[in-house]
């Protein structure tokens, strides 16, 4: 099982909102779902691909002095494929095939399409067969070359896991 993930999954999984409120509640839910995903992948001994382009996004708010430490930690836990020439060809294919997606699944912004296409293509070129993202447009794009998935809402193999995560027991 080789899966690609987008950068937001790690942001959700590690996010602790400083202020309570509606958005904080939304993010708590996404945090739980992202952690469910990571637990499921680890249980299946899956390999997770986090493309280097996604790493660059994760680094933006991180102080420069700490960026090296975060990169080292990420590369210990994830395969981090760069945007190579095979990925370039896949990205070009994604850009052209994107126009054939239903209107409501197409990107409104070319720049966002370009960034997501490069991330999806990098994961695909390195051998990912599945791609996880909470973003519907990104999943539609990934569906052109891989099997897309949203974040899980429960764990079919461990009915207690979601509760354990919410209580902070795991």
């Amino acid at each position, binding site marked *: 099982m080789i899966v690609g993930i987008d950068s937001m999954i790690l942001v959700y999984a590690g996010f602790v909102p400083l202020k309570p409120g509606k958005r904080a509640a939304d993010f708590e839910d996404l945090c739980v779902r992202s952690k469910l995903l990571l*637990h499921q992948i680890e249980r299946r001994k899956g390999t997770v691909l986090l493309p280097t382009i996604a790493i660059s996004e994760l680094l933006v708010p991180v102080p420069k002095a700490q960026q090296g430490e975060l990169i080292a930690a990420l590369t210990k836990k994830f395969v981090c494929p760069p945007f190579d020439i095979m990925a370039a060809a896949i990205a070009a294919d994604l850009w052209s095939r994107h126009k054939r997606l239903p209107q409501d699944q197409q990107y409104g912004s070319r720049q966002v399409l370009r960034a997501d296409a490069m991330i999806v293509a990098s994961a695909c070129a390195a051998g990912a067969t599945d791609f996880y993202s909470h973003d519907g447009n990104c999943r539609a794009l990934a569906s052109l070359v891989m099997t897309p998935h949203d974040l899980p809402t429960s764990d079919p193999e461990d009915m207690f896991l979601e509760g354990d995560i919410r209580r902070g027991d795991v």
Partner: protein
Amino acid sequence: MVSKKKAAPTFRVHFVAPDLVPEQIPLRAVSDALSAVQDLASGRDPFEIAHVPPEKDIRLVDVRRGSAVYSCVSRAPDEARANLAHVGVLLSSTDEQQMEEDGLVAALRPIESLSQVARSMRCRIEVTLAGQQESPLFVVGEDAFQRISSRLLLRGDTTVIGRVERVGGATGMRCLLRVPGRHRILYCDVESKDLVRRLGQHLYEQIAARGTATWIHRSWRIYQFTITDFTQPQLGDPTEAIEELRSAGLKAWDEIADPEAFMRELRS
């Protein structure tokens, strides 16, 4: 009842060079060349089929002293003639679309072998239909593979994820990787002895190999891969992994009031 009548040759393989006599040709060169022509005649795709099926094999007939002409008989003669004629069309084609078709991809390794034999023997290898005085179906010189590969193959650095099946080798440093989604095992070259030793410590484990790949254009099938390094990232316990990432700097995202809006802004 088995017929004792000698089979008529289907086609001939010529090693052509001034003053070339059979004694100069090592058995290995003859074997490599004939194996490659057999692959071409049977239409075998080396990526998909390990060996030429018995019902399509070729055998030598009329072998005699004073000749560097090897007459072969095919057990599927019509198919062999058609496949070899097709190789001739592919080799002489300059049209882009024909250059990329599956037939040429399947023929690539045999043509590489024939080119190597031609280079080592300083000759060209011609395949002609038996019993005909016409021009050869195709001719492979020492530069034939180079000429095709420069248009059909792409080279670049990449990552390949696979399970280490074997490491080592008597003649070269090799590593066999089982790559998910690929029918045949991937024979990789390894850059250094030190790397071979490191890979040997990870037999039957999955690795993320970094290296230089040669791909077949369009299909993106890996034709050759040289491993220059590898890693074995492991997520481990997710709770500990997230805590480790937060400590390493990921907690900087806590300061962002709306991470989704921030990411959208980054990407636009």
